[in-house]
């Protein structure tokens, strides 16, 4: 038997289904690189228009599918990763309109569309994505509702049912979601989480903006114009002064004349010895997702927190890429001495310069070395003094040529941290002082609402570390010599919100503070929740650790309680809006025990008379009440509004007070 053809969707419903699909795709597209998103969106719209009247031939659909997948793969450079996967999903989804003609198709469209918000959340967990994603999911559910209505009514033209308004539909869906919410929350907090993933987490193939293990000219400018928050820190105890807030990230050793990179070969070596001073900071970091394994820490961390490893230059590497928000408890300290004995291989790495670059710088360094003799510190001071005297800070820099350090030091004498740190390190190395570039963030913004510090991408910074005999590695920030206010966030125009969304509005800072605090709370409460937090969840109540058996018991308890709650909520039925009617129905229900409940078709007075016959003792007051009720309900021409309300309330009270008992009226 051939499969019967499924009924075609009428155009209105088809349009709604496609619209719901598009709304699910939208947040995902926003997270993809612009060009890819544009291609997919254009393809989706084009295919939607082409297939509006009649289906596309299946051969054409196949060709389109292959073409679109090919385009996306080429645009991502065949790099396979989480984001490429999402892009492919979006591309396949863009073809869906060409095969959505029946009820069944529409349902499968909606089903697949629900993956849209899901994929979005894998890429980004910001407020915009969350809002759009949830709205899209709601929309998809309300379309499912519409489809179920169509299904139960084979001939919509003959439908006697009044069409629901969009608002009513949304309300119905909101009701369903609200009823399901307690269960969802119970599962969310109590369902045992995985402490390690079941399968490897594919990384993003296309880099997310952030610190990288590479510093090439101009790369930092993008970061420095990005006001996105990259980390939040809450100190337990004292916080360092802003001028000491150096969030140390990738340490760059290798210079090829143009870009600084992190060497791979000695990353596996154990962390260099460090003697910490008396001051120290105890703090909790909340790192926004970066998709790299490395994250920054304040100055030098004393030890690696669980789940991480320290590299030789005290970079902190997590075991997995930080694809979602992560939280770390750290202790840091400024070092008294840091790697006072430098191994020969490292020393050579910290002195190497590419040959054939920057001859003028090399000459200057040789001259300084000759004049200073063995005093490395004097050379450092001299360089800083020169920078302080002759250089200016600007983000508007010309493109530098082959001898970039020469051009910066002798010709332009203007630039930003990238130029200062790079040139300074080259100068030091040329003078025979081991030196390296450190990238990270400097400064921070204190949010008085919530009492924590936040660091934005625009705080990205690069500085230098030089190795001095007896002290080891010492931090030197040549940029700070020129423009400390640019670095430490002390300028008024660098305050959050100054150039952003609320730009120019005086008093926008409190608003920003509050919104970031809310964001942090959301991060804290929802995004950062994981297996270890789950185990510590009941600490405030004296339960130190929830092992999985306790957790499962709790989960089962709460889940069944919420299920019962769901059943109760659902079965309550819709509440009558009119208080008089409500009281009247309750009154008639009270007669059920006496077997005298009002029949659905029975008028109020007829019922009262019937009751009077059976129970003369109750009849009198019931008759009076029914008379009142009928008068109120059917007599037109209400007196003044206020009076009417009083009358109504009086009637409701009287109806409620009437309680029939087995012998006479109970008082």
């Amino acid at each position, binding site marked *: *038997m051939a*499969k*019967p*053809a*499924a*009924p075609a969707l009428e155009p209105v419903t088809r349009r709604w289904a496609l619209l719901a699909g598009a709304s699910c795709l939208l947040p995902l597209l926003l997270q993809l690189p612009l060009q890819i998103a544009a291609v997919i969106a254009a393809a989706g719209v084009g295919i939607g228009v082409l297939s509006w009247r009649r289906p596309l031939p299946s051969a054409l659909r196949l060709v389109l599918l292959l073409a679109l997948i090919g385009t996306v793969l080429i645009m991502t450079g065949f790099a396979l990763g989480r984001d490429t996967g999402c892009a492919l999903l979006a591309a396949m989804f863009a073809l869906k309109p060409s095969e959505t003609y*029946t*009820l*069944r198709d529409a*349902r*499968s469209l909606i*089903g697949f569309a*629900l*993956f849209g*918000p*899901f994929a979005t*959340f*894998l890429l980004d*967990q910001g407020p915009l994505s*969350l809002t759009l*994603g*949830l709205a899209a*999911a709601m929309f998809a*559910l309300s379309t*499912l509702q519409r*489809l*179920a*209505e169509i*299904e*139960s009514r*084979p001939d919509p033209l003959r439908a006697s*049912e009044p069409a629901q308004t969009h608002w009513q539909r949304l309300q*119905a*869906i909101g*009701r*369903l979601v609200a*009823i*399901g*919410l*307690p*269960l*969802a929350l119970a*599962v969310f907090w109590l369902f045992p*989480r*995985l402490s390690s*993933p*079941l*399968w490897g*987490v594919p990384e993003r193939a296309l880099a997310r903006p952030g610190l990288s293990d590479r510093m090439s000219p101009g790369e930092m400018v993008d970061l420095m114009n990005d006001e996105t928050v990259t980390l939040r820190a809450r100190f337990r105890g004292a916080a360092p002064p802003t001028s000491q807030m150096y969030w140390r990230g990738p340490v760059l050793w290798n210079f090829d004349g143009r870009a600084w990179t992190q060497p791979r070969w000695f990353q596996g070596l154990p962390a260099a010895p460090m003697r910490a001073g008396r001051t120290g900071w105890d703090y909790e970091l909340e790192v926004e997702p970066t998709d790299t394994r490395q994250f920054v820490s304040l100055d030098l961390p004393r030890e690696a927190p669980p789940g991480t490893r320290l590299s030789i230059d005290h970079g902190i590497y997590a075991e997995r890429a930080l*694809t*979602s928000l992560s939280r770390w408890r750290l202790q840091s300290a400024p070092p008294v001495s840091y790697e006072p004995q430098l191994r020969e291989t490292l020393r050579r790495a910290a002195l190497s310069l590419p040959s054939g670059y920057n001859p003028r710088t090399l000459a200057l360094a040789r001259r300084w070395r000759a004049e200073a003799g063995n005093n490395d510190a004097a050379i450092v001071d001299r360089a800083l003094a020169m920078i302080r005297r002759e250089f200016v800070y600007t983000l508007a820099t010309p493109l530098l040529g082959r001898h970039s350090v020469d051009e910066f030091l002798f010709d332009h004498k203007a630039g930003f941290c990238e130029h200062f740190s790079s040139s300074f390190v080259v100068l030091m190395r040329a003078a025979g002082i081991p030196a390296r570039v450190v990238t990270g963030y400097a400064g921070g913004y204190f949010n008085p609402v919530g009492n924590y510090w936040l660091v934005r991408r625009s705080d990205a910074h690069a500085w230098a570390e030089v190795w001095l005999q007896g002290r080891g590695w010492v931090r030197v920030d040549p940029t700070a010599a020129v423009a400390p206010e640019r670095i430490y966030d002390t300028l008024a125009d660098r305050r959050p919100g100054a150039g952003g969304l609320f730009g120019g509005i005086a008093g926008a800072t409190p608003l920003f503070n509050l919104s970031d605090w809310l964001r942090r709370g959301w991060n804290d409460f*929802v*995004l*950062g*929740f994981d297996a270890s937090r789950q185990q510590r969840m009941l600490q405030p109540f004296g339960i130190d650790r929830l092992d999985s058996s306790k957790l499962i018991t709790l989960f089962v308890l709460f889940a069944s309680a919420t299920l019962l709650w769901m059943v109760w909520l*659902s*079965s309550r*039925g*819709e509440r009558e809006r009119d208080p008089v009617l409500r009281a009247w129905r309750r009154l008639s229900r009270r007669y059920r025990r006496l077997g005298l409940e009002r029949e*659905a078709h029975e008028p109020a007075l007829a019922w009262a008379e019937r009751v009077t016959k059976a129970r003369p003792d109750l009849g009198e007051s019931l008759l009076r009440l029914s008379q009142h009720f009928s008068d109120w309900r059917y007599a037109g021409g209400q007196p003044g509004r206020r009076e009417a309300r009083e009358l109504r309330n009086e009637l409701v009270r009287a109806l409620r007070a009437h309680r029939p008992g087995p012998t006479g009226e109970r008082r």
Partner: protein
Amino acid sequence: MAATQARDDLDTGGARPASRRWIALRARMMSLTRPRRPEALPARFDRRRIYVLPTGFGLFYGALLATMTLGALNYNNNPAFLLALLLGGAGLASLIAAQLQLAGLSIVAIDAEPVPAGMPLTVRVHARAAPDRVRRGLRVDDHGALGIDAAVLDLEQGAGEAELRIATERRGWLDLPRLRVSTTRPLGLARAWAHVWPEAPLLVYPTPEAHGPPLPVGGGDQAVTRLHPSGDDVHHLRAYRFGDARRAIAWKHSARRDTLLVREYEQPLGADVELEWHRLSGLGQEARISRLARWVDEAERDGCRYRLSLPNQPTLGPGTGPSHRHACLRALALMPHG
């Protein structure tokens, strides 16, 4: 109807001839579901006789959510996890809502105007429920037993009815199959259904013969006449009334009396028609029944009084009118099948 078939596709599987085993399994499942035997109406759907199972799409939705949950747990991605949970919660709530669409519903009566066998019988299913919940778009069908089209039941102010059309083949009592009242609302993820199996059978009249001899001429005692404008015998004259045909005016008589008079005619309608089983001895049982059924209808149409005598039964009539016709056709319908 196409919608029915599509539903069956999405359902746990329509009855396809290839899957005999499936049909057997389903029959077995049906024998376990309540009610297990015909019942007296009204039948109230309580939670013991309401069944809820996910539809095909519901299973797909569940698989989708399971994938999402697994992925979200693996990536420890809380927004994605919450999304999956919210969708799951809404899905579960819709299961409950589907069940509640039926809970508390009573099928209070089922009736049908009898029709001759071969014509579709329109069966009205009357339902009642407390008006506290919107109950719309409930589907009433027979779960494939007789292959009847589904009807839609909407409750308005706590009452509503659905009209099923059931094909009829045999005269006599038509035992209703177990009827299924079902809904996939609100989200189409699950189908909630309950069965009602009314024990009261419905009557199907015998099929009247298509072309047969005319009514036998009546030989009864009380011949009746009826006034008829086109009759042959003038009965009497009466005063003109507005609307009388002009050619009915008796001009001569009117001229004599100075007022318009109109002739009224009468036509003899013959005697009571005798419809007797024994007179049709040349025919088979069914042929006799269908001829008598036709004569009953013709006699009724012509306004004759008629009498029906069947073997082993008291004679019906003479009489005329709907109730007499019903009594005659009922008696014919309930003749033993030969």
